[in-house]
């Protein structure tokens, strides 16, 4: 990945700490920008309704991005992808991976990219690697449809 901030803009639907990390990585928040970053930024879901709400928001953002031929990046909880955080968060994280992959398939012919970047939902998580991965994904990166790892629990099983 490039170490030079790409100085791009995106519509950031993300936790405040990630917005700050993205700014440091050269991605500025611009509500009218032709790029979207969606981070459900939660470490707790109370019920199925919360899963449904977060995935519906992803659907709306993806539909808008497709209409505008804009790239989209979904930030997912890395531990939840592997089911380590309970069914609700696992359904959300993997549902977002399905959203990302479908967006990449549908956008392929028009060059509309979609990525997912894993992150920790912990309040004290280091989001700098996540932000760098998002910046790279928004920089016209050539491998749409991929998961980029911005955290480390994918290597073996993390502590419970």
């Amino acid at each position, binding site marked *: 990945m490039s170490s030079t901030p790409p100085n791009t803009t995106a519509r950031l639907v993300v936790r405040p700490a990630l917005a700050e990390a993205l700014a440091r990585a050269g991605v500025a928040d611009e509500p009218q920008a032709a790029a979207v970053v969606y981070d459900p930024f939660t470490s707790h879901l109370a019920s199925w309704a919360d899963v449904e709400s977060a995935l519906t928001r992803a659907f709306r953002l993806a539909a808008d991005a497709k209409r505008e031929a804009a790239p989209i990046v979904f930030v997912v909880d890395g531990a939840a992808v592997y089911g380590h955080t309970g069914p609700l968060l696992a359904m959300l994280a993997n549902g977002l991976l*399905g959203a990302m992959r*479908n967006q990449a398939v549908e956008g392929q012919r028009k060059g509309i990219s979609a990525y997912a970047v894993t992150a920790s939902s912990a309040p004290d998580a280091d989001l700098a690697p996540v932000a760098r991965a998002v910046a790279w994904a928004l920089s016209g990166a050539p491998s749409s449809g991929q998961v980029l790892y911005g955290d480390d629990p994918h290597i073996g099983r993390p502590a419970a």
Partner: protein
Amino acid sequence: MSPTAIVTGAARGIGAAIAERLMTDGHDVLLVDLSSAVVETAERLAAARRGSAWGLPLDINDTDAPQVIAGCCEAGRVKVLVNNAGITRDAMVEKMTEDDFLAVLRVNLGGAYALAMAAIPVLGNDSAIVNVSSKSANGNFGQFNYAVSKAGLIGLTRSLALLLAPRVRVNAIAPAFTHTEMTDAIPHDVRAKVVSRIPFGRGAQPSEIADVVAWLASPQASYVTGQVVAACGGRSFG
């Protein structure tokens, strides 16, 4: 008599084939489906196979449906739960309505989650849950809602596998194109194009999917949990 296996979406197609295969393995099966045809399917299977089959017409999305299903079963007696109920409402994402997004999400994922949670008390030791996901979890034209729901099922599978181990094994199957009444309605040229991408050169028969589900649910898979088995004729890498 109380069921030892529950299969949703069982009136026809893959679900009916799974119910039939489980009966061959000696299960007494509760077949659940939105369609009232599930009663006839159960009667047909009961007449043709040794064992009992019950048909329960029910909308898996009804708030009390999971409890109604679990209430038909004796605590600890159920050995197999197959979450197979699923619908499609295809459209490219920018043209997909929110109603169609939610309809698919609620049946395919929300229904499976609610039933799995409700069934935990009736599942016995060494029992198995099998969730019917799809190769489309990796994305497919016009199936944003379906991809989200089927990928979400993989997350549900992994998390329940960890939560319920070692008492209950939880796995998923990801079929590719399978010949059913639903897919037979697809225009011939579209079907031919889909099938041409499958290294086997044909779609699956429902019985071939049912065989894999039965294996995942059987003691032969006693050390397999949290996995997704692609039953796709090589499509996932072809």
